[in-house]
């Protein structure tokens, strides 16, 4: 019953939002095709704008994951470290070695250079 009420509230608020958006612009025509073209100061594009673009913060994101993942596993590891002993140290060593490859890759990509 609660779920049904929640669903109803969601549907009503979504409908109200859409109505609010549609009502003032219901008589306005769609922009014309020339208006929808990209503004190039009177020029025209040759190719479609669906081009693949390199996200230059990608190595930075990779580095964040490398460090964050490390910490995520180190907290539970610290809890069982005393109990497991040397095995836990070796496992963590392997884990850090794999992660450090990511950090070295990021280093090569220039992620530590502030630009």
């Amino acid at each position, binding site marked *: 019953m609660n779920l049904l009420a929640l669903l109803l509230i969601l549907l009503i608020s979504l409908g109200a939002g859409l109505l609010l958006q549609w009502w003032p612009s219901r008589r306005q025509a769609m922009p*014309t095709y*020339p208006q929808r073209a990209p503004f*190039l100061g*009177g020029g025209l*594009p*040759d190719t479609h704008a669906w081009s693949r673009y390199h996200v230059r913060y990608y190595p930075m994101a990779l580095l964040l994951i490398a460090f964050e993942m490390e910490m995520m596993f180190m907290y539970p590891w610290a809890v069982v470290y005393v109990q497991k002993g040397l095995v836990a140290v070796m496992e963590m060593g392997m884990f850090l070695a794999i992660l450090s490859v990511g950090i070295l890759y990021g280093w090569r990509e220039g992620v530590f250079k502030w630009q």
Partner: protein
Amino acid sequence: MAIISWLSRLAARGPATVFPALGMRGEEALYRLALNPRIRLVDSPRHASLLLVAGGMPPEMQEPLRRVHDQLPAPFTTLWYQSEPLLELQQADTTRVDSLDALPDALVDAHRNALGGELGVSPRLLPDAPPNPWQGLGDDGRGGEGMMGGVPYGRPMAMPPTDDLRDGLALDILTFRLGPFFPLWPAGLAAEVTLQGDIVQQLSVKSPPFPRPLAPVFFEARERAVPIARLELERARHHLRALFHALHLAGLEDLALDALGLAQSCEPEAIGALEKRFRALAGRMKRRGFFALHLPACGTLGEKHAETLGGFAARAAGIDRDARLDDEGYRRLDFSVISQRKGDTRARWHQRLAEIAQSLRLAAQAQQDDAVTANLEALETPRGPWRNEELPGDASALLEELLPGLEWGEALATVASLDLAGVSQWPRP
């Protein structure tokens, strides 16, 4: 509907939003309007309620003008300042203004009337049809075969190039034609640009910028002796107007308007205060990081290009040449050539600012001594030397070698730091 009409009435009371499409000799209108608080110049037709076509429009620019015209959102109207309306619009409610003094009022009235629904809005000139219709073929309905194949909307997909200019990571290339009404570079300049990501891979100039008219005093100086104070004030005005464009490009709008305000007040009566005002402006530019943040140390001119351009661009590249040295009148004022070494975008602006300061100083001194020019054979215009009958010509072709390899923002800053347009053989009105 009530909300919309209330919003329209509110918008009509605000400043008139104008997109200027500059033709030949149309820039005077731009400088006048930029300082008017009732008018807001915008860089895109989508933000405008008025299209101002200022200056003569050659026939080959009419098709690009139609495209820009049709990109303004309705309701809008068009004003023609010292320009002949397009044939299709001559039957419509066109407003033609030939006086610069009457232009701001005409624009404000047109803005109010257009938004208030009292004026006939400009009709659309191009057919409301997709420029490249949907072809609906292929595996993914993109007009071709495969994920990356085909010609969506009739235009081919941007495809990976063979090489990358920056770091070896090849990106898709995007080719387009920009201009002649692109507001962030010289009026009339149209070029085919190929970008790879944000790097300019190739640029070819399709039409050069319109020749720029100089102040009448430069033409008088080739015929008779003229006061050096007038000549130097006009030189400072020319560079300050260029500075307005560069500061606008950098997003420092208040400083841009200050530079333009200073340019408009470069008159002999105000000579005493000009130097002080300019020093204050230069200090604010430095504090706001114009040099450090907005001017990349790139766009270095080689010796050949620097020689071709001449003037301040050559001096910024270390070529100590100035036709004023051959003038006895200037020698009496202890004129000496200022120059830089590096020849890049940053050095060019250091050079220009130093030359503005020098011009204002020379003007003040020349006014005190009543100094006049003595050489009718050669003249240093703000754009470069004018010897014999040869006026400084168009140099936009050098962009084809200068810009590839630069990021788009760096390329625009480089264009703004150069005076590429040739000098018109008719003086400014």
